[in-house]
């Protein structure tokens, strides 16, 4: 019945929505930032444990739509063990993949995150996918505050 939506709602997204990874409070986090999308009320708290410039651990709490939940869940998986520079590079590619005009994005570079490429056809949903990454960006810049997509 929802054939048109297969690109947007891939099975991986349903899976992460049903069973979000790294969905927990991190007691010994040394970075903690809240992300908020006032348009839809999505709220998430991102926890990072930094070891030098390496992301030793990442987790989150909060509630959001399937796209935003899957996005943050996938993100916490993929950034673990990455350096700040590597995570920042991923953010840039992810941003390009979800908002850019360029057809030729290197999907290999984003790995599993490619399942979120479909949102670029749904301008109303792009922010759902990017909230996690904007929150990460703030956390990496060590901005201990809430960020908002608006």
């Amino acid at each position, binding site marked *: 019945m*929802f054939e048109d*939506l297969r690109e947007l*709602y891939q099975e991986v997204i*349903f899976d992460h929505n049903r069973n979000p990874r790294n969905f927990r409070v991190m007691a010994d986090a040394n970075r903690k930032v809240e992300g908020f999308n006032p348009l*839809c009320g*999505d709220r998430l708290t991102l926890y990072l444990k930094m070891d030098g410039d390496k992301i030793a651990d990442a987790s989150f709490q909060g*509630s959001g*739509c*399937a*796209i935003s939940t899957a996005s943050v869940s996938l993100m916490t998986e993929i950034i673990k063990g990455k350096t700040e520079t590597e995570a920042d590079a991923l953010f840039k590619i992810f941003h390009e993949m979800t908002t850019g005009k360029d057809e030729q994005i290197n999907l290999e570079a984003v790995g599993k995150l490619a399942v979120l490429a479909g949102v670029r056809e749904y301008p109303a949903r792009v922010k759902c996918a990017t909230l996690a990454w904007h929150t990460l960006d703030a956390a990496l810049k060590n901005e201990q505050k809430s960020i908002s997509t608006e």
Partner: protein
Amino acid sequence: MTTFPIDKIRADFPILAEKIRNKPLVYLDSGASCQKPNAVIDSISHVYRHEYANIHRGVHTLSVRATDKFEAAREKVRGFINAASTKEIIFVRGATEAINLIAQTYGKANIKSGDEIVITAMEHHSNIVPWQMLCEQTGAVLKVAPMNTKGELIFDELSALLNDKTRLVAVAHMSNALGTINPVEKIIAAAHALNIPVMLDGAQAIPHIAVDMQALDCDFYVFSGHKLYGPSGIGVLYGKQALLEAMPPYQGGGDMIKTVSFEKSTYAGLPHKFEAGTPSIADVIGLGAAIDYLNEIGMANIAAYEAELLAYSTQQAKQIKGLRIIGEAEDKGAILSFVLDKIHPHDIGTMLDSLGIAIRAGHHCAMPVMDFYGVPATARASFAMYNTKAEIDVLMDGIKSLIEVFG
């Protein structure tokens, strides 16, 4: 209801024939904005083709023609809400501007530090923020009357908030997030017993309920044209003449003055005192056409038909496991707000959109209502006179299928 001319009405709204994602459009977002009948679309293009010029300014024929049409629309609005005089009908951009106007003119002139303004827990942001701004400017205090879990105003609690410091009660006639219709007659009686004026936010109520300013006896009533099958960018502030006379103007400029010199200007009489600058001329005339159209069908017929749609949709929704209706007031207009277990309203919105169904998903500019129910957002189907039970079936089938897909 005998025979509501639903087929004719649907044929009058050309956009209803539109295909969305290759499916027939099922438009269930009239609470956000209504679609427009040919009568309105044609009247606007007629104005620009045959009757357009600036109003109240020219001796030439076209200006006279436009002015006559514009003022005739004011008379149509007066008749539609049974105000005593066209002097009490002020054209503004919409409900939001009307409320800001009241806050910044009536409010600034009459509300002082320590005074109180009473609203309810179910207000739209546009009936919260202008009062908060006024409170910040004056030191007045905003008091919020609570509601129960069905989404009904607790009238006794509102009553208990009224005292000799209360300067205004500002209440939604009908809630956009819940559909609740408030007991406005009782509220007005209670406030007037203490000489407190009452403003009703009629943005949601106006397309569903016949209103009569003289019978209601409210002091201010505001609504937007675009939710009344009229154009966007135009709305109405009704105010009792004596109150409007005593209020300072809102904006200064052309049309709102009697005389201007560099020493002093004097202001025009009502309603022009509050209509500075060139208004949305064709849209006001279009709003008049919408009112003619509604009068032809009859507000009582519309209300009866929509009550059936609401009852049917409510009954169907209750059969769906995992669906929770948000807002179950006894007295309710044609709005079905709901949440689904473990499925975010935005996903509901996108999924239904792929089936051609337009609903609203979000906080509906009523974040305090969302907080009250402990949800980040709801999905909302809002019905208008052009919707059908068959469309409600499409909606319900869509909801059932998406629940399945989410598993």
